[in-house]
């Protein structure tokens, strides 16, 4: 019964809700030239976003003028629902996450973006379980092996509701909100690197995402009272 709910009912309800809310939101894009440059580069584009901003970006990035995208959803029941929503919006989907099958999913993404020119891959930099705002290796690995460009993208909105108990502090714009979508400058990473370098590139991307989120929040005049990067036990 739960399976049926998650695979059929929840996706339909979520899709209807997303479309309804989206129709009322007013989008404003900043630095769209970065998206245009990345899409026109002839290289695979790896869209890097924060998991907590997925609802602001989902419908927007599914619009044809914003490219064709491959996304990753976990193999859990929640992932089933999310995969169906994303497929209905026009995304291609591979299944896997840091909780299981994530490495194979990254391999599949590399294969698919290389085999299908014009298809980009988008991935939450902080994975499917966090910690919030902490970049995991997937995006960088994807970019270096596919020869792609990383395109940081994030969004903010006002008015919006923040799900404070969610690990990613999911932000959901309220009806008629203004949604600010901001693109960062696309960049490449070396094709060959050791584990220590990978970590450095992850920190670099993390800094870019934090700065980009601050910009989006400033533009929208809203934002989260908590930092983008969740504090680690060692902090």
């Amino acid at each position, binding site marked *: 019964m739960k399976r049926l709910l998650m695979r059929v009912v929840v996706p339909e309800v979520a899709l209807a809700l997303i479309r309804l809310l989206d129709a009322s939101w007013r989008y404003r894009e900043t630095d769209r030239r970065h998206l245009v440059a990345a899409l026109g580069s002839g290289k695979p584009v790896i869209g890097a976003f924060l998991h907590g901003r997925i609802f602001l970006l989902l419908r927007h990035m599914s619009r044809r003028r914003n490219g064709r995208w491959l996304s990753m959803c976990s193999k859990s029941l929640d992932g089933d629902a999310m995969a169906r929503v994303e497929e209905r919006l026009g995304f291609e989907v591979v299944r896997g996450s840091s909780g299981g099958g994530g*490495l*194979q999913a*990254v*391999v599949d993404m*590399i*294969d698919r973006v290389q085999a299908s020119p014009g298809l980009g891959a988008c991935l939450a930099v902080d994975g499917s379980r966090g910690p919030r705002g902490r970049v995991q*290796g997937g995006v960088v*690995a994807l970019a270096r*092996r596919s020869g792609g460009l990383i395109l940081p993208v994030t969004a903010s909105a006002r008015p919006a509701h923040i799900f404070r108990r969610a690990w990613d502090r999911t932000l959901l714009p309220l009806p008629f909100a203004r949604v600010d979508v901001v693109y960062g400058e696309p960049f490449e990473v070396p094709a*060959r690197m*050791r*584990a220590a370098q*990978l970590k450095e590139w992850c920190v670099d991307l993390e800094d870019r995402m934090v700065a980009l989120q601050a910009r989006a929040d400033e533009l929208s005049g809203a934002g989260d009272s908590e930092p983008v990067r969740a504090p680690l036990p060692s902090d």
Partner: protein
Amino acid sequence: MNRREILARVGEAVEESSAEEIDWAAVSEETTVESFGFDSLAVLDLIFDLKQEFGVQIPVEEMLAMKTTGDLVTYLQNHAS
């Protein structure tokens, strides 16, 4: 291609991918894959390097299940065209 030739070509890919310095001359088919100190990044590299070298893409799960370089050679021998 015989097993010795495959092992030599695997060696080139492993040396490229591993975070450790590997003396490939000392590596035999009994050497454990674990001793190469692969992390997930290196596994990803090795999968694509071997694909480039042999035209065989090893699924992640099968790659992680391999115990020795001999297992790797056997897989490639069975799947390379």
